[in-house]
């Protein structure tokens, strides 16, 4: 089945199998490894992508279901070959250790800030509660998001 979608701003036409998930489409068919595989049931958040600007678990979305929609993965944040300021903030504040949760954290944060541009630390934590991290203990991730928010005031 042919499906047309917009991936990271570019229109794509792909052949999808009926049971294929968006995560499998991205990783196995399109070779886009930004979204990771962590738990196969939408709990851990490492497969987070933005679908029409809202976060979804790519492992819980059928590839066929994104026909006509816009999908954003981490590399879609690139700006003129450089990093998005939120990515810079993560790097600068030590919010990245093993990095496996990072794509999901970044995308979830951006989608959240579109709706709530000036959150406090507690609100940031609540917004990220669906993205597990095993390495950082979250403090520096919250530091990075807070710094980014301040920098945008």
């Amino acid at each position: 089945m042919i499906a047309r979608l917009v991936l990271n701003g570019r229109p794509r036409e792909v052949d999808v199998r009926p049971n294929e998930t968006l995560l499998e489409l991205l990783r196995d068919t399109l070779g886009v490894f930004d979204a990771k595989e962590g738990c196969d049931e939408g709990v851990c958040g490492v497969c987070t992508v933005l679908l029409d600007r809202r976060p979804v678990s790519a492992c819980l979305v059928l590839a066929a279901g994104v026909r006509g929609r816009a999908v954003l993965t981490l590399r879609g944040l690139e700006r003129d070959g450089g990093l998005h300021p939120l990515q810079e903030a993560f790097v600068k504040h030590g919010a990245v250790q093993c990095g496996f949760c990072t794509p999901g954290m970044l995308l979830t944060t951006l989608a959240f800030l579109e709706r709530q541009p000036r959150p406090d630390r507690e609100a940031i934590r609540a917004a990220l509660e669906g993205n597990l991290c095993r390495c950082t203990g979250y403090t520096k991730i919250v530091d990075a998001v807070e710094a980014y928010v301040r920098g945008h005031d």
Partner: protein
Amino acid sequence: MTDAVATREGLRVVGQPVVRHDARDKVAAATAYAADWALPGMLYAAVLRSPYPAARIVRLDTAKAAAMAGVAVVLTAKDVPRNTLSTDVPGQTTAVGPLRATLHVLAEGRVRHQGEPVALVAAETLELAHAAVETIEIEYEPTAGVFSPEAALAPGAPAVHGPGNLLAQWRIARGDVTTALRDAAVVVEGEYTTQMVDAAYLEPESGVAWIDSDGVITIRLSTQVIEHFRDVAEVLQVPQNRVRVIGTYLGGGFGGKEDVTVEAYLGLLALKTGRPVKMVWTRHESLLSRAKRHPYRLRYRTGANARGEIVAQQIELLGDAGAYAYLSALVLLYSTVTAAGPYRVPAVEVDARVAYTNNPPTSAMRGFGAMQTVFAYESQLDRVARALGVDPVMIRRVNALRRGDTLPVGQVIETHVALPELAERAWSALGPPTQPRAAHVRVGRGLSCNFQPYGRIVWLHDWASAWLGFEMDGSLVVRCGCPDVGGGQASSLCQIAAEVLGVSLARISVHVSDSALTPLAGTTTASRQLYMSGNAVLKTARELRAQLLGVAGALLGADADALDMEDDQVVTTDGRTLAIPRLLAECARAGVARSHLGVYHAPAGEPVDLAKGSGKVFPDYTFGAHAAEVEVDTETGVVRVLRFAAAHDVGRAINPQSVEGQIQGGAVQGLGYGLMEEVVLDRGINLTTSFATYLIPTAADVPDVRAVVVESGEGLGPFNARGIGEPPIGPPAAAIANAIEHATGVRITRLPITAERVARGLGLLD
């Protein structure tokens, strides 16, 4: 060679919170993790695992599965050239004999735990591989199993391996415990239970294997130990130089990727099919059957005098080794050595045992046995303090080890012990007490200290090597076998090289973790990598520097000892400079090498008879203190951590931001252990094989962790650094338990501290 670089004031790069090169790559999705790899013609692998915790395999027929279209191969034990992965664990007590921790690659005739691998499939798609697994015809005959160490050690218990089920036993006896307890002003008796937990890294076990054009079986995987190439070669019965392990940047390790995981299967399948093969474990598979942390029963009798000084500890430990030994004997050794805590204790008895059961196997995990004991010894100390009316900081100050004191095992503490300072700083970092926000809420605070060995046991003669070389344009290459688990291991090596050789970080590239192409540096475990690889790079850099400055001195007409290297050039005391490329050109002309391979050997020792208490076991220890403020809902038992501070003496922080990150991450993993993580087993059947049931902390479950970094300047690592990977995971559970007692008077002695356990303690369910 000057030691000027070792002084604190002279450091330019070490001690700076530099941005890690891998952090940039990771935010840009440029890092290819083990599963982010595809090769033409690649097959997908799946594993058939036993649903039973104890059973005989009465029938196994793979013909139908092997005949399926798209299935390349189906393998069982008979197809494995050498079906044994064994670890000889040295230093065992004669009570149980020398240890051969035999493990099969694929089960032979019987299975001993749920999830034990029985067969392997490689197929054109993952879906086909799973379908083939389900088509394998297999019949089990369940046999009697044992599911607790107590049951396993009872007379007549079914044998997991040999009769008796006792895998290892360590004993320490020092001083007269009986008399000391009899004469003590207070004796506190406690029994503590710690649970089985999972490493729960977000990246599952993953890898891809292929045979390269040279016939070398190459396995690219997420691992903490690239030296397993030897184990794979033995399994495949090929020469060791025909197996290469490329370790990727891990998506977390925590000890769970220390044993052989996917590499033996991948090597086998690549060899049998001649094609590239990919294996990625599902979360279910990983939670089901990957080796876990040893659960313990810890029985303590702690005696103290009226001044609060501990006079005796009588300790009994019983651990669950699960179905296979893996590293259990060593884990037990760590528990035994640390059982009395970072304190002066004149009379100590420790009797530690670990037994086989038909539960999931237990092995290495961050803390490695020195973590479970913290819950017991810090809970005990808190209870002693309470009984005597002494405050928690004071009792640690009174009892803390000092330089020159002797551990129960006979090891003399040779470095400064910052414990009293750490306890005070962690405690005061909590700030003014939070007032309870409602009538049904109580607030309390708790303290917990620990010490964690870093560096391997001294009689294992640890070593690490590194290669540093300049390119002609003055850029530098670092090669070191050190796997990077996400803690900035590779980045720290660059910092050290930059410090010694004066090369800017932007001009250093580092290659790690390739068993064929990077000099071996040992495992990324035991909080040893900064100590070992860091020292290897430091030593190698210094030796290379000496080599180069000899040539520079001749060029500049100056004494080599008076030269420095900074900002990508050599400088003299009177301000003349020599650009590095110019120096390198001169080296080439003079036949002096621009590169160097160095080896660092850790100071070694002879095996210690623990029972005789005769000496040094670990090179050194990292001391820490954590403080927690909690809120307890006295109507529901729900515990919320309001504030948390974690202080460690790291000797020197090579990268302060990385050090804070380790402390914060370890502390939160420790909070998960304290409050919510548990592998729940029902007669060997795992009920928590999903992230929906095996719970790790989210951002909403924990507060900010205030990391307090103390630098005593005493440590065996480069620039006097100490290991920090494991220490922060130890204290949190006891800090929480102590805080809950402070808030409510209820003492919880079983982990995890769930709301229901607190509710029962409060009498809400009576």
